[in-house]
């Protein structure tokens, strides 16, 4: 009995693709647009394209990213120290891999890297025709990295960069410095656009924010299978869509950066984005700028639910600035328009301690308690705690009123 018969009989084949004969290894032909690139570790293929700085990828020209000022970079990274990030010397990086689950057995078979240079924006694609070309590819990548002082990716902090670090170790190659200042635009996108986009893939940003048109694109989850087919069939047409997918991804990194910079300058026309910038500033304790940004977002607000959220953030930011009167104006709007519980609580507190208007405070407490009694609030986890706090405030107010009355 052969091994495969035995394996079949004991049911070891569940979930394994059917057997197929292994074809003779086909010659490694060159692919159009790629040239062989050799070093001490062997040969791999590389393509190069130089885009002029004024090249428009969607609504943004590439050079807009270069114009990104320090303040904007700090906001995009939510880290002031990243203001020193030098876009002109950064490496834009995106990989295509043999698996999406991570772990040592996942390989980056195509690495798109790009960067600005005096004459334009140069995109290189490093491609291995088979697994044995990986060391040569990685070695060349480490040379390219040496010229760069930072990294720009989309989800590279948790995916591309650790994966490459693993590949260097697994191939026993001296690892380049991958721990460079790293602008991961997925994190930026989450902060800036999650208030209006339900999905934050690069492709959805392209559609909704960057105005980049992709045609005939291949879904990311299909890519490993295409590469595996290429390995046995050696048909370069299988990978054409993958190469262009990767190329567009790299170019879109530049556009996301440009779009983000524009948003930080307050030039965007999207209310969610303005709100995202304001929240980021708020989180970075840039209070006055945050207040301005909230107001800019409010100016565009048409949708009541978002307006309520923005106004609430504004009210809190104003209070933190010590501007209690303006804050109270916002809370009052919130209380009048939406019977907002947070607003009623804030107003009650203000009336009790700041303006010492006990009647007003009492009225707010009563309204808040009634509000808390509505079905939506009764189901909320914090219901009991809030109710207890309001009741004790009511008790205290009654005592104060009694004393005042006496």
């Amino acid at each position, binding site marked *: 009995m052969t091994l495969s018969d035995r394996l079949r009989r004991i049911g070891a084949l569940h979930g*394994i*693709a059917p057997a197929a004969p292994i074809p003779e290894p086909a010659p490694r032909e060159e692919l159009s647009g790629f040239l062989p690139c050799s070093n001490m570790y062997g040969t791999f293929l590389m393509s190069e394209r130089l885009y002029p700085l004024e090249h428009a990828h969607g609504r943004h020209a590439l050079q807009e990213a270069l114009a990104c000022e320090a303040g904007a970079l700090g906001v995009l990274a939510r880290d002031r120290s990243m203001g020193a990030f030098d876009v002109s010397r950064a490496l834009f990086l995106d990989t295509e891999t043999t698996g999406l689950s991570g772990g040592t057995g996942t390989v980056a078979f195509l690495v798109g890297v790009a960067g600005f240079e005096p004459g334009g924006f140069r995109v290189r694609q490093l491609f291995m025709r088979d697994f044995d070309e990986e060391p040569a590819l990685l070695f060349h990548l480490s040379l390219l990295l040496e010229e760069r002082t930072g990294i720009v990716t989309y989800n590279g902090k948790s995916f591309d960069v650790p994966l490459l670090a693993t590949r260097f170790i697994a191939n026993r190659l001296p690892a380049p410095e991958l721990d460079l200042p790293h602008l991961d635009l997925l994190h930026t996108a989450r902060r800036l656009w999650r208030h209006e986009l339900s999905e934050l893939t690069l492709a959805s940003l392209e559609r909704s924010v960057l105005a980049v048109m992709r045609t005939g694109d291949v879904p990311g989850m299909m890519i490993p299978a295409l590469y595996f087919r290429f390995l046995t069939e050696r048909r370069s047409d299988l990978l054409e869509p993958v190469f262009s997918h990767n190329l567009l991804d790299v170019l879109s990194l530049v556009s996301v950066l440009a779009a983000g910079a524009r948003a930080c300058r307050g030039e965007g026309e999207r209310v969610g984005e303005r709100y995202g910038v304001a929240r980021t500033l708020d989180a970075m304790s840039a209070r006055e700028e945050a207040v301005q940004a909230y107001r800019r977002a409010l100016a565009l607000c048409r949708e009541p639910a978002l307006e309520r959220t923005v106004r609430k953030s504004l009210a809190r930011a104003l209070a933190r600035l010590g501007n209690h009167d303006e804050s109270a104006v916002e809370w009052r709007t919130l209380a009048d328009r939406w019977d907002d519980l947070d607003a009623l609580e804030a107003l009650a507190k203000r009336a009790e301690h700041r303006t010492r208007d006990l009647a007003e405070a009492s009225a707010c407490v009563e309204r808040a308690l009634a509000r808390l009694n509505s079905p939506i609030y009764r189901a909320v986890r914090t219901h009991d705690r809030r109710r207890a706090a309001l009741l004790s405030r009511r008790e205290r107010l009654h005592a104060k009123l009694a004393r005042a009355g006496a």
Partner: protein
Amino acid sequence: MRGFPDHDVDRLLDEIRGDAAFQERLTNWKVIPAREAVTAPFPQNIDPRLIGAMKSRGIERLFSHQSEALERAARGENIVVVTPTASGKTLCYNLPVLNELLARPESRALYLFPTKALSADQLDELHGIVTSTGGDVKTFTFDGDTPADARRAIRSAGHIVVTNPDMLHSGILPHHTRWVKLFENLKFVVLDELHHYRGVFGSHLANVIRRLKRICRFYGSNPRFICCSATIANPGELASRLLEDAVTVVDKNGAPSGEKHFLLYNPPVVNRELGIRRSVIKESRDVADRFLEKGCPTIVFARSRLTVEVLTTYLKEKMSRRHKNPELIQGYRGGYLPTERRAIEGALRDGSVLGVVSTNALELGIDIGSLEVSVMCGYPGTVASAWQQAGRAGRRQGRSVAVMIASSSPLDQYMVAHPDYFFGRPPEGAVLNPDNLVILMSHVKCAAFELPFEDGENFGACQEDLDELLHFLEEHRVLRHVGNRWHWMADVYPAGDVSLRSATTDNVVIHDVVNDRVIGEIDWPTAPLIVHDEAIYLHQSRQYQIERFDYENKRANARPVEVDYYTDAESKTDIKVLDIFEERPAPGGQRAHGEVAVTTLPVLYKKIRFHTHENVGWGYIHLPEQEMQTTSFWFSYGENDHQTLGVTAEEMGLGLKALANILSQVAPLFVMGEPHDLRAVAMVQSPFTRRPTVYVYDNHPGGVGFSERIFEDCARLFRSAGELVGGCPCPDGCPSCVGPALEIGPRGKELAVRLLALGGMEDRGVLSGQGLSAASRPSASAEA
């Protein structure tokens, strides 16, 4: 140490001696005398800080086995330390490891415990020693509960990483590049509770160790292994099969121990025909309460979580009735919160809890101080476990008592009836089969994912199969061979699909449709008999009825119900022999083992009422037959043996059925298996041997080594089974021996005894087993 005066136990022992009813139920009262300590000075070359730390804890000299372990480990030997509970075994690995880490702070060690519960406790002790050395040795637990932000620090800074095999397999090895520091500097791997790594789990672990060594080679390290095992027949063999390397056995225990009284107790028979004895739970309650009433700190071991709850309730009630605080009794089992467990452990140590009822969760190294009495509600399944549980009472000095109370299951009955077996040489040998094809292939895939195989590379001891497997995986597009290496070529994470606790890669998911949640998974091969339509499925002592078993999608929909019956499925099993590995004539027939295909066709199920066991209904099961290839032992009798025995062919069939029943019950004893590890089937005329034949097969696809072991030791198995059946007081068979007379016919029991005698005849020229002394005695007299 506890302040209970010794005479409480003494007085109680006297009282029991004078209690005729109690005495009648005892099948044995063994006194194990106290033993003096054998000590040795600290070996040369031990870091003085470590000696200081020991002395600060009152340890001036080591026990002899500790110092031997330390010396051998320092010399670079792999060792397995075999010592009973409370012999200070943790120092056997903590000392060599800390000595290394104090001398070379860049060194690393990996501790593996079979379950998670152990780690917290081990960690506390270790932290204590480290603190008193003043050295900078960082110890971390890394498991499923470790928060993501702590993981990075553990990977780079942890000197000792404490984890379990499952985490090593699925969380560490596949990400070895994040653990460079650990793997480059790994000096020691500690495997505690080695005897757990047997059967399926052991076969997996051997492969995880192959992968671990492979990663270590890649990073240029070559760690030594320090193993600890409870007393089993073959610790050295087990360790060297797991490690595939030479291992020194350290088994001269130098720790002192107090006098121990070990009582084997059989509840009285209440119904001879049905073989029903008084409930083991109630009996355990009464025995335990006798000791608790006198204020003896007592631990009661129960086999299931449910029994723990029931016994805890019973014992609390007894306390209340005496107007004592019922909180003096506590339950302890998996499923309690870690904080609850820590609190109970602490209360046991300081004496604020008097009695604890536990599953085997407390069998292991958790520190609960020294109790005086251990009561086992049922035989824990292996002799090794029974000794560990008995060892929870009585540490190094003072008298202690262990009482094992038998249930009416055949194994329990055998144990209480055969104290020689129980107290004699350890009878059970752990078996494993790292080259089980299903298991091997799973780990070859995991290993290829971790690092490409190179041409000519070894994977443990299985060179030939490895090449074939790699080619096989290439044909199936899992691997790609290029440039002398085999690269992983699939978009999956193989370790995620492999459970170390199962030999199959497929599971059936059981889904509670009312609460819309998954309540469990079971192995594909056993699913048709457990989750067929209408089956009652028990999960955490809740009943569910299976609404539909979706065979194609491997999913069973269940609905919570409350009924007074359970279901029992019957199937038709057919066995086809594919290959004979070995065949030998035996005096009473012919024995063999080899590869077989087992087909199982579920036929019908019965509804059986709880307590009365009456049949209250049945139904057909409509499911396709299942085929499994595995390994089997078989024994065939002479073609005309039924005539020689003076019975009809039909009676012979029933006798063989009785034989199969008892063999499947007793066989796990010899291989340290669980009841579901083995199945037995009898055929009056097996199509393969054309003779009356009984097959005992490994119930895991591919086999994990059980049947080979049974083949080697079959005469002893048959004799032990014969003694058990002969000693059972039932007239015509009962569930405690060959099965009820209803099932095996009026002559089934008698025939089984005769067939067992034929199979148990001494095989001349082959050294069979270890001279079971009970074998020479007439087998029919019951001691009870």
